């Protein structure tokens, strides 16, 4: 053991109570840091996974990020071209050649894709009209890219394949229109077609806008109803690695031209909220450690004041200012390191307690546990921050101790 370390340990041991109190400060700081951080990070992960699960990872829609360039502007590059009365060509809306595009996308590694044709229709039953968004899907492809199948509470998605006139609606909508499984209802499309369809399934997502406002039919049926043969207006994609969505989306968009929106892009505002939340959380928990470091500053300043005689004698003996500084820096480091270690154990305990708490939020079926993030990074961050602030707190008294002049003390004594 180095000499300065030995002196530091002796100092700390001779003031057990104060040492213990400052250790306690660091310990609680680290423990709270870990508990709050794990809770916030856990809930963030929980939130993101819900976000990822409930939406396709990438949605390709039949629109372009930028309007198409006019031929006149292309003809005269750099010139100021003004074109008035441009009237877009009437076209069948949708993704052109979606099958070929899907083939290309499906060959990308870790990517599953399914076509959707969605459009507004009106459901009529017993004189009541309800406008809903109809999604035309291919059931066997949809299972790979969406969790809609898990949300179906009666019937199944496959029933659509068996019965081309089948429709799956939300349970809330069914209740509203007083419909049940097997009932027939009338569907009117914007192009004027009217069909009678049979309810083959009911779903419930828990989001009322979806449960009351969406319906699933067979893709082919949707193409007929909307008069868009062989078209899809959405390609929904699920990835093995959801966090690759941004890169994959950019790659797809570059290749096929249609707007490809990753889940990150779709929820950019939420992600920035999470970032702000993290910044707030870390400033608050860091504040606890900063407060703890004031305690350390206090005890080491007191020790330096009390040990001025010792410092004088050590210096007269031949200890340098650096040796003296090191003694008190050691004291801060020891408190920081031991406080961190005990803080980690208490922090893990707190996290386990938080994790075991379960409660039933309103509108949810079944109890849920608090989401806790168990990552090592936050532990390291708490320890590093605690030790650094303890050393920082020790630095100023240590520097002062190093500057003590033995003659000043000797004169004061004599």
């Amino acid at each position, binding site marked *: 053991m180095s000499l300065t370390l030995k002196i530091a340990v002796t100092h700390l041991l001779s003031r057990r109570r104060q040492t213990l109190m400052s250790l306690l400060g660091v310990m609680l700081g680290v423990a709270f840091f870990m508990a709050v951080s794990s809770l916030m990070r856990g809930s963030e992960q929980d939130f993101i996974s819900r976000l990822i699960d409930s939406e396709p990872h990438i949605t390709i829609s039949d629109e372009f990020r930028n309007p198409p360039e006019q031929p006149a502007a292309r003809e005269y590059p750099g010139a100021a071209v003004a074109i008035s009365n441009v009237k877009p060509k009437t076209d069948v809306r949708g993704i052109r050649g979606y099958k070929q595009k899907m083939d290309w996308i499906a060959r990308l590694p870790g990517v599953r894709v399914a076509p959707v044709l969605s459009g507004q229709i009106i459901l009529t039953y017993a004189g009541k009209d309800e406008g809903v968004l109809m999604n035309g899907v291919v059931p066997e492809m949809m299972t790979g890219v969406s969790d809609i199948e898990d949300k179906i509470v009666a019937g199944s998605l496959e029933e659509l394949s068996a019965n081309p006139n089948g429709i799956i609606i939300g349970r809330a909508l069914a209740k509203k229109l007083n419909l049940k499984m097997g009932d027939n209802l009338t569907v009117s499309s914007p192009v004027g077609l009217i069909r009678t369809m049979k309810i083959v399934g009911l779903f419930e997502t828990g989001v009322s806008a979806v449960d009351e406002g969406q319906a699933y039919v067979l893709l082919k049926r949707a193409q007929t109803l909307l008069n868009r043969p062989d078209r899809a207006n959405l390609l929904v994609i699920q990835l093995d690695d959801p966090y690759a969505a941004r890169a994959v989306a950019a790659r797809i968009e570059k290749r096929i031209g249609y707007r490809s929106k990753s889940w990150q892009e779709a929820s950019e505002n939420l992600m920035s909220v999470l970032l702000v939340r993290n910044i707030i959380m870390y400033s608050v928990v860091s504040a606890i450690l900063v407060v703890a470091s004031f305690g350390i500053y206090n005890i080491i300043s007191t020790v330096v004041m009390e040990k001025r005689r010792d410092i004088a004698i050590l210096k007269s003996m*031949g200890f340098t200012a650096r040796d003296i500084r090191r003694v008190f820096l050691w004291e801060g480091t020891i408190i920081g390191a031991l406080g961190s270690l005990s803080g980690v154990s208490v922090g893990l305990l707190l996290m386990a307690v938080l994790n075991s708490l379960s409660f039933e939020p309103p509108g949810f079926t079944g109890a849920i546990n608090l989401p806790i993030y168990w990552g090592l990074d936050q532990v390291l961050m708490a320890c590093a921050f605690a030790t650094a602030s303890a050393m920082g707190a020790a630095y100023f008294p240590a520097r002062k101790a190093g500057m003590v002049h033995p003659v000043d003390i000797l004169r004061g004594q*004599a």
Partner: protein
Amino acid sequence: MTEVLRAERVTRVLPGEVPVTLVRDASLSVSRGEFVSIMGPSGSGKSSLLYLLGLLDMPTSGRIWLDGEEVSALDDRRIARIRLEKLGFVFQFHFLLAEFSVLDNVMLPMAKLGRLNEAERRERAARLLDDLGLGDHIRKRPDQLSGGQRQRVAIARALANDPLIILADEPTGNLDSVASANVRDILSALVHEGNKTVLAVTHDPDFARAGDRQIHIIDGRVETDEVNGG
């Protein structure tokens, strides 16, 4: 005889609104194996002179040589090293580290110097303490000892690194007459049997008479410098 310490026209002025001259133009030379007492009234600057000669303080002007090396121009680190290797201090208020045992206190300068290993340090410290009649007290804390015993621990500590010169600032100033005589005899024996050099500031005429030479300081000046019995 070899000269171990020399001061030439050393002056120390304490800066401030009204500068105070502590030591004025002091010149002296100390040879190896001498026991020199520095005497003078309170506030005469004798302790300040000792601090300058012990490299605890730096002169405002003038030069100091220790063991043939000019030390008044060295940096703090180098001076700390010289104090560690060549000088030993004994103060009036025995300045021992309260949390350390008597043995640890004596071992501290050796540990800092790092020439001996742990076992050798322990052995040497125990021997030094034993020589000074403290063999039974090495495990005790300083506050369990009497004033005279503590002062002997301080002497043992001053001797830890086998210094060239021992500088003592009123070593008997706080002791009763028996303990004073004891400390005086120890220092005298160090000089006459151990071939050490002792430079001691004192008020005590008996102490001064035990030495070889007396230097009188008045108002920061070396007033007289005479060999005892001469």
